[in-house]
């Protein structure tokens, strides 16, 4: 009897811990999207991909004027040329990617069962280069942005459809990305969620903070503050620095997993990249 009571007590004590460890991406997705829909009932679900422009009428009006001559157009055109150009060995990027790379951006990042790691589209492009005897491109700026602008444009309007397969390594990667998003870091003690969940729609000086829902769907972006294009990893690095945290490597597990989590949270929203931001 005493033994039974001890076992029962142990089970009761362990239950919350086990619940905390359980990984349920579908339940997370529902709770995440419900949070934003409840906080911003006036914003149509698909409009979250427009970030601050879905929150502020003045900014939206300015953006619509800017978009008459999209600032990412040069990157888009250059990206198309880069993608079509043959490697010295005669192969192309299209040879390395599913469906020749066209209309696939909404499925990235993907979990690669061979390596057990998350692969972003940028990393897939770099893998293609290495296989064909070329050096990797920078994951933050330059030609990679232009290639990404083109590939994202080819998926424009398609619903984000990132999959977290029933593989413990994929679930662990998703969970690490989730932890990275919610954990506070840096001397200013901010998490990604501090700005892009709790602070979404609020002003940070002259900026309106974009909601995390749909955030990833507009990348790569031309950011006026940069005066150039940037991938989502460039933004991650910038956010880390702004809260006085040392950024991770651009191809780090942390950023791959964070992008994986964020993309999964935007499931069903239309790809809106390349984008333009203040």
């Amino acid at each position, binding site marked *: 009897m005493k033994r039974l009571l001890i076992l029962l007590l142990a089970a009761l004590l362990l239950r919350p811990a086990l619940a*905390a460890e359980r990984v349920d991406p579908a339940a*997370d997705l529902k*709770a*995440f999207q*419900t*949070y934003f829909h409840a906080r911003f009932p006036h914003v149509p679900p698909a409009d979250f991909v427009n970030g601050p422009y879905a929150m502020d009428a003045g900014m939206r009006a300015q953006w619509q004027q800017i978009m008459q001559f999209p600032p990412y157009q040069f990157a888009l055109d250059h990206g198309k040329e880069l993608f079509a150009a043959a490697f010295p060995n005669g192969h192309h990027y299209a040879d390395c990617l599913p469906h020749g790379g066209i209309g696939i951006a909404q499925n990235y990042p993907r979990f690669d069962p061979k390596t057990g790691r998350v692969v972003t589209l940028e990393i897939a492009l770099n893998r293609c280069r290495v296989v064909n005897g070329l050096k990797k491109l920078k994951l933050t700026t330059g030609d990679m942005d232009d290639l990404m602008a083109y590939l994202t444009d080819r998926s424009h309007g398609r619903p984000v459809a990132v999959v977290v397969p029933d593989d413990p390594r994929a679930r662990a990667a998703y969970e690490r990305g*989730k*932890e990275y998003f*919610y*954990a*506070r*870091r*840096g*001397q200013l*003690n901010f*998490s990604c*969620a501090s700005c892009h*969940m*709790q602070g979404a729609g609020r002003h940070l000086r002259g900026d309106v903070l974009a909601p995390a829902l749909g955030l990833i769907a507009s990348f790569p972006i031309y950011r006026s503050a940069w005066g150039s294009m940037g991938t989502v990893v460039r933004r991650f690095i910038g956010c880390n*620095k702004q809260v*006085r*945290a*040392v950024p*991770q490597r651009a191809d780090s597990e*942390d950023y791959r997993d964070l992008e994986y989590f964020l993309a999964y949270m935007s499931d069903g929203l239309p790809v809106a990249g390349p984008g333009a931001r203040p």
Partner: protein
Amino acid sequence: MRAWILAGVVALAAVPAAAAVQPDAAAAIARAEAAAQEAAALRDQWTPTIAALHAAHAAAAKGDTAAARRFADRATLLAGLSIRQAREQAQLWRSAVPQ
């Protein structure tokens, strides 16, 4: 002649003091390096920690041991705070997740 003797006495008096400060500064920098490494291993390094460490090394290179120790102590303090943050956040992050 008197001035020379005075200068010699001052110089001799200063030597043991400088010799005593140097190992202190080196130890302070070593402590700061160790704390910063621990913070990095927890993936929560702060940029001000690195800035303070660089300043400590720069001061030590110039022979300003007092400043080196001061910057190193600052780096140790900042690294300690980031370690505490990382350990607390290892569990606390869950409280921010919408249910």
